[in-house]
């Protein structure tokens, strides 16, 4: 994958998720980080750390990004969320504006 078109999301435990920039942009918060004209280190290196978000949740979030892209392009499938993840995922989603 071309490095320009991907971003690296790092969870609280240090796990790294490399995903398409386009997918990460589903989150308004990440979009702002990556596109703001200021000198955010995120903008330059394409790496975003989430010390508050656990690996399980961040993995789910990445799945959601891709699902959301498919959904908006017309592929209407269901996005399953395990009930035990709902609370933490909700908080992360709230933070990420997604």
């Amino acid at each position: 994958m071309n490095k320009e078109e991907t971003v690296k999301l790092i969870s609280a435990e240090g796990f790294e998720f490399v995903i398409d920039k386009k997918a990460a942009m589903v989150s308004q918060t990440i979009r702002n980080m990556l596109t703001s004209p200021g000198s955010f280190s995120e903008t330059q290196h394409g790496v975003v750390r989430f010390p508050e978000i656990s690996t399980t949740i961040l993995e789910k979030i990445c799945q959601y990004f891709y699902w959301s892209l498919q959904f908006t392009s017309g592929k209407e499938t269901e996005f399953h969320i395990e009930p035990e993840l709902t609370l933490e995922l909700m908080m992360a989603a709230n933070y990420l504006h997604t």
Partner: protein
Amino acid sequence: MESGLVELCISSASESKESIEKWRRQRRTLEKLPTPLAEALLRRLLTRRLVSPSLLEVFQHCIEEINLKGENLVDAEWMAYLGAFRYLQTLILADCRSITSSALWPLTGMNNLKELDLSRCMKVTDAGVLHLISIRNLEKLSVSETSLTADGVAQLSSLKKLYSLDLGGLPVTDSALSSLQVLRKLEYLDMWGSKISNNGAALLKMFLMLKFLNLAWTKVSKVPYLPSLTSLNISNCSVESIFEQGYYGVKAPHLAMLHLSGIEVTDVHEIFSYIDPRRLSYLDLSNSFLHNFQFLVNMTALEHLDVSFSRVEDDSVELIAHVGTTLKFLNLGNTRVSSAGIECLAGCIPNVETLILSHTAVDDTALPYIGMMPSLKVIDLSSSNIKGVLFLVFQISVTSVMEVCSPSYAVNLSKATNRRAKVLPGHLTAWPQGIGVVSCVSCPNTGTTPNETDNGFCHLVGNELDQILSLTALQNLNSLERLDLEETQVTDGALQPLSSMKDLMFLSLKSDFLTDASLLFLSSLLNLKFLGIRGAVLTNAGLLSFNPPPLLEILDLRDCWLLTEDALLSYCESYSQIEVRHEHIHNCTAAQIVFHDSSAIRGTSRPVILRPKLAKSSPAKTCTPCIPFRKEVFVDERLKYSRKELLELKSSPLPRVSYLFHNALELLKIQ
């Protein structure tokens, strides 16, 4: 509205009791949950009826506002858990019928609680007040229609921080009100239906901050001068004076809203003499016996005027027109106002957004004038004389359209033809070119020979009965969102102009003149969210071929007696996003059982029978009179079921069904 993933999480979390069990033990996460998320989750759980009192416990750290309005389940046990919500600021318990006085005990000492609504909790008595007065920081309290007595109300005087107090429907006496005088912060006081007399009303001037006062349905006839007041409601009182007592030369400087619905009054001008007419923005005069509206003259700031069910007539409409550019809402429903009155309004109230003319004698000649109110968003013409077609008595060949527009031309024309002819201004370009619109208002019969007017500008071609689709006049209203034409005589053809009103969101029709043909025009209204075509002669085939506008949410087909359950259900299936309303959709399970095997017969028999009749009414060539159609409606019981079905019904064991179709069977025998 929550964003995508938050919404999905909330749906998943509140899917079932089992899913709740999966997350309710995550206490630390729940404690961290931001208040808006926790409140959204709790709201969803409440609407899905999944909240048990013990589940409330997990929310005790993160909820600031909870609305339990109308939850009959809420009882002392719920209250015990709610008492532990230490950050709770707003608690709405309106219409919670199981709440008793003792159930309020856990609320004692809840120092963060600022707003409490106990409206219509009938079991709350004076004993409950003891618990309430320990909530020191309470700012907003509603105890309307509870079982409090005057004594209980008097005790509320210890809640010194109150600025809003709703005592509606309680037997508040003058002495109880006098003990409330210590509530100096009071801005909002509702005492409708209380036992307050003029003596009590005189005490109101002690509340220096009072902005809102409701004294409806009381014996108060004299309201003292209250300079801070912005809203006053004295509906259904016999009023002698407002602001006369204590008046010192400055007309109430802030009063903007005045509710005088259903008042009995001896001298209405006396009432308005102490009110600054230039401040009033909201005036409700509905249901009053007023007929002289001279007081409207100086009300130059009026935005909302309701004179429905009053004795307003065309002569007084001129005074309303005088209000001018500020007027946004005008309700003339159920009055004697006619098209002539609407003519006075044209051009005078350009910013009016809502115009209600239901149950008036307004007819199609008013539509061009309504079309001259460019800001209109809502028009209600239900039960008026609108037909959607204007009959052109004369067809005129016009040399200059501008000439036709001028009023003097109408006068000339009247002279020439010896009748009250009127030229309808505006939108001539929207009508067929070269034809001026002249309606002969007083005499519909056309007996005169072709004529030539004095100035020779036009020539009356003849007395051909020609017609114009009068709803065309509304096409220029670009902001029109809602149009109500229920119970009018509009026909399919007359609705045609509506198809170009792309911004229309709400359209309500109810008429037995409408058929499948209307559906064709209506599918081109792309922004439509609500469509009601009640009582229309729609067929199954017509409905199934109706391609609904993409945004449609509700399709109201009640009283469309020709539609079968099968057709409706299959329509619901194909367009699941639309809520279809029809008698068959909710309460027809019994009939479904009876008819499950005969749907094929029903599907074909009815449209075949009716088609010739429909064809007669659909072209808007002539205005079909009302009576023959009513007869056809009467026939429908026979048409509703095929002969085979009726015979099946006859042997049906269900007594209810046989009773329902008894008439139909009788008629069949006669045939």
